[in-house]
């Protein structure tokens, strides 16, 4: 991959964004002193173009666009190893959540579409059914991602073992879940929540 040269100047440093991340994640980005312990323990670092400690460093330098453009944040598994081991109590897993949210809201430029599609379908299922129906989730994911044959061989096996249910017990208070979604949307419209 050809590396773009990074220019650090007042024009390219956006520290307001970092403050927003800190508010959402309720932790400090600035407290990191780059020991690298997060990246050493990260099971997903091999799949990322920016390992976790570099994500934090880029944020410190106000270079958040580089982070959001890449796939690193979408390849975080939320295993919490980084947050557990950080000597400075930087809650990096929460920072990753905040970055994903900001990228998600802005319908950001990330290249990682499969993970985002999976998230989107998962949340739609909650809103519609109150619970997650795995078979539906997997089937719709395959159709929408154009991978019609993905895990096709697993299907009959799982059905035979009773692991995929065609029918599910329904929540009787589905309107409650819709209210939660609506109230959150209203709060955001009024600027009462990020």
């Amino acid at each position, binding site marked *: 991959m050809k590396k773009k040269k990074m220019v650090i100047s007042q024009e390219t440093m956006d520290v307001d964004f970092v403050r927003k991340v800190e508010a959402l994640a*309720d932790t400090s980005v600035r407290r990191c002193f780059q020991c690298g312990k997060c990246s050493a323990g990260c099971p997903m670092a091999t799949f990322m173009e920016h390992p976790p400690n570099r994500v934090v460093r880029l944020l410190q330098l106000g270079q958040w666009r580089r982070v959001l453009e890449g796939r690193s944040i979408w390849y975080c*598994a939320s295993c919490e190893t980084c947050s557990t081991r950080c000597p400075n109590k930087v809650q990096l897993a929460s920072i990753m959540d905040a970055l994903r949210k900001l990228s998600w809201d802005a319908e950001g430029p990330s290249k990682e579409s499969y993970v985002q*599609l999976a998230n989107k379908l998962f949340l739609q299922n909650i809103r519609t059914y109150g619970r997650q129906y795995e078979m539906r989730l997997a089937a719709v994911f395959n159709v929408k991602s154009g991978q019609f044959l993905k895990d096709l061989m697993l299907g009959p096996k799982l059905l035979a*073992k009773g692991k995929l*249910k065609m029918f*599910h017990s329904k929540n009787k208070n589905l309107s409650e879940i819709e209210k939660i979604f609506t109230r959150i949307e209203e*709060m955001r419209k009024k600027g009462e929540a990020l």
Partner: protein
Amino acid sequence: MKTLLNYSYYPGCSLHASASEYDLSTRELFNALGIGLTEIPDWFCCGATPAHNVDELLSLSLCAKNLELADKVEGDMAVACASCFSRLKTTQHVLTENEVKRKQVETAINAPVKLDSSVKHLLEILAKDLGLERLATAANKPLAGLKVACYYGCLLTRPTDVPNLDCTEAPTIMERVIEAVGAETVAWTHRLECCGANFTLSRPGVVIQLTNAILESAKAAGADCIMVGCPLCHGNLDIRQKEIEGVYNADYNMPVFYLTQLVGLSVGLGAEKLGLDAMIVNPMPLLKEKGLL
């Protein structure tokens, strides 16, 4: 005599589908141990990883709603899935620390948040509430000679100060539980490593790589089987095992049990009550060889 234990049970979405044997064996085991379990009526999905990944407020609100529903059922909350457990505990932790977020969540669910209600993973109930001594007494068919690799995965213990189930880096609660009912445990390297969890849907290649390392480590340590307390870990280790063997040209043939299945065996429950036939890697040859069935 201690009063009879009773819990409000939050199974979570997986236990109603891909992990139905975890649900079945939990109910049967608790019944056999004389522990009451009442399923919370009309519980919702906790939001799991996808919700907190992109919308923390939604994730917190869904969990707060479930805490409210659980409060209407008598007893502490019993949670089977490591991910649901983690989300519920995280919600209580975050909302205790952050008043702004707590107010937002209270607006979203239009009710106060139950910050102090007790949320427990099944392991905690067996090890602490029931107690290892009583568990050992109940084990009338000890799992003698069975070598178990206890797999914690990520969310049972991490991060610091949130689940508070056991030590984050060197937990022993699974080993203590399964040793109490007569099994042996092995020391191995990957018991706290991530299996790739929900990437099984979006990026299965990730799961295959990470889960292979876990299976390889358990095999190298001489384990007969793996024990888990999470339906996602189980799905990756069990359902994808054949595929992994193909990709890495390996032969693991490693049955993956839920903790309730193994403990259930030790208290004399039969294969049909533990859903052993739902496991993809067939555990019967192993259990027969060890004289446990």
